[in-house]
């Protein structure tokens, strides 16, 4: 096989891992996001809740993701009640283990991102909403959350990029996403430079696209930063 044909063939093989990588990212970021919202709710509910969530965030941000994946994939099998529970059919599968670990991990980081966003909400905006007769829940849904999400979006973007990179660890528990496929091609062909560079380029392309998409979303969500309509060039018609 010529060198070019090998590169093309490798590229096609690695491309088959892209859906796996992307679905790992999408599912875990979505689940982690829901969990982060729940954590934020618990954190705001009571003193004890705040303490518990801080402990959770500390433990998941302070230890490596790889050890968290191993703890779930290999460790949970050691515990009797997990083995006999309804969760076991899921936690036996590497895919669900990877999803669980990634989601629990990103939830801790997203909870911090969300906290930063919530702290940036001006007190006056909340007070104005309450004065208008909005209840706490409605003020949170209509005023606080939108402002917080807008504030948190740049940090959220980098969290998603970090998650794209983090999914590569799923290859260690036998999932064939991009890195897993690359590793198996390298161990068959010993052509590490070529194979791993192509894999790297695919990751860069994914992250570049994601960053651009989030940037567009950010511009859409912050109309006030685009300037008033009169600032724009007026059409002749």
């Amino acid at each position, binding site marked *: 096989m010529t060198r070019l044909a090998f590169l093309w063939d490798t590229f096609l093989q690695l491309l088959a891992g892209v859906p796996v990588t992307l679905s790992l990212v999408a599912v875990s970021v979505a689940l982690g996001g829901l969990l982060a919202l729940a954590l934020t709710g618990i954190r705001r509910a009571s003193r004890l809740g705040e303490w518990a969530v801080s402990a959770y965030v*500390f*433990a998941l941000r*302070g*230890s*490596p*993701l*790889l*050890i*968290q994946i*191993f*703890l779930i994939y*290999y*460790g*949970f*099998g*050691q*515990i009797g009640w997990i083995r006999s529970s309804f969760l076991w059919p899921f936690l036996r599968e590497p895919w669900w283990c990877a999803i669980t670990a990634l989601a629990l991990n990103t939830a801790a980081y997203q909870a911090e991102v969300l906290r930063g966003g919530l702290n940036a909400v001006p007190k006056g905006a909340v007070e104005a909403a309450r004065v208008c007769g909005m209840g706490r829940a409605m003020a949170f849904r209509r005023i606080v959350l939108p402002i917080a999400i807008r504030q948190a979006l740049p940090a959220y973007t980098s969290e998603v*990029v970090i998650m*794209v*990179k*983090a*999914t*590569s*660890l799923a*290859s*260690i528990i036998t999932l064939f996403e991009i*890195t897993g496929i*690359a*590793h198996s091609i*390298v161990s068959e062909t*010993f*052509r*590490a*430079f070529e194979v*791993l*560079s192509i*894999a*790297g380029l695919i*990751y*860069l392309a994914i*992250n*570049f696209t994601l960053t651009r998409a989030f940037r567009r979303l950010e511009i859409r969500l912050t109309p006030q930063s685009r300037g008033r309509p009169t600032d724009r060039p007026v059409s002749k018609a």
Partner: protein
Amino acid sequence: MDGLVAYFTLIGFGPTGWGVPLLRAATMTVAVSLAAFGVGIVFGVFGCWAKLSKSVVAQSAAAVYTTVLRGVPDLLVIYLLYFGGSQAIGAIARTFGHQGFFGLNGFVVGMMAVGIISGAYQTEVLRGAYLAIPKGELEAARVASMGRLLMLRRIIAPQTLRFALPGMGNVWQLILKESALISVVGLIEIMNQTRLAVGRTGAAFSFYITGAILFLVITTFSGAAFRRAEAWAMRGMAGRVRQ
């Protein structure tokens, strides 16, 4: 209760305990992280210098470096250095008539890989810190007729370090956690030692939770050390108005 006793016998320092290997592995984690931190600072200083230089070539090289290393999974970089490195050494060796696969030293590969990755983050930290130095101080130093090296040593380096310390603390935490990935190239650090212990005893949950706790202890203590260093570096700066 029996469970707890069994657990502490397993990870303890008794004849059947894994305490000594685990502590040795923790020392290895700290050692390889420190080495990687050093490599990262060297790459960070060069990256920062290139980003701030007037040369377009240096600027774009640094931009490619930080973009690529921050956009590609760390595991891929470690694999590239490990397998790519042995591929290159193998190619050199073949020209001298040697055959076979050349395994590289796990410590060196891990130190270099994590160092190069963290260098990309360190570049941004140092650049931000350099730009935070009030311009007036540099002008004053020049007016006081300091040479470039003297100015670097007396004004730029200490001030940059002061402003960079919080960011460097974050990079250090990142390195500590990334060092777990070095286990894939065979270095016996915490991650790998717990994996070996699990292979021998089957007690997966006990050992992986112990490994996670060891990491938490290291990150907590070093985090506290960085906060003390920050307080030390910022002494006499309270209430100063930043330009």
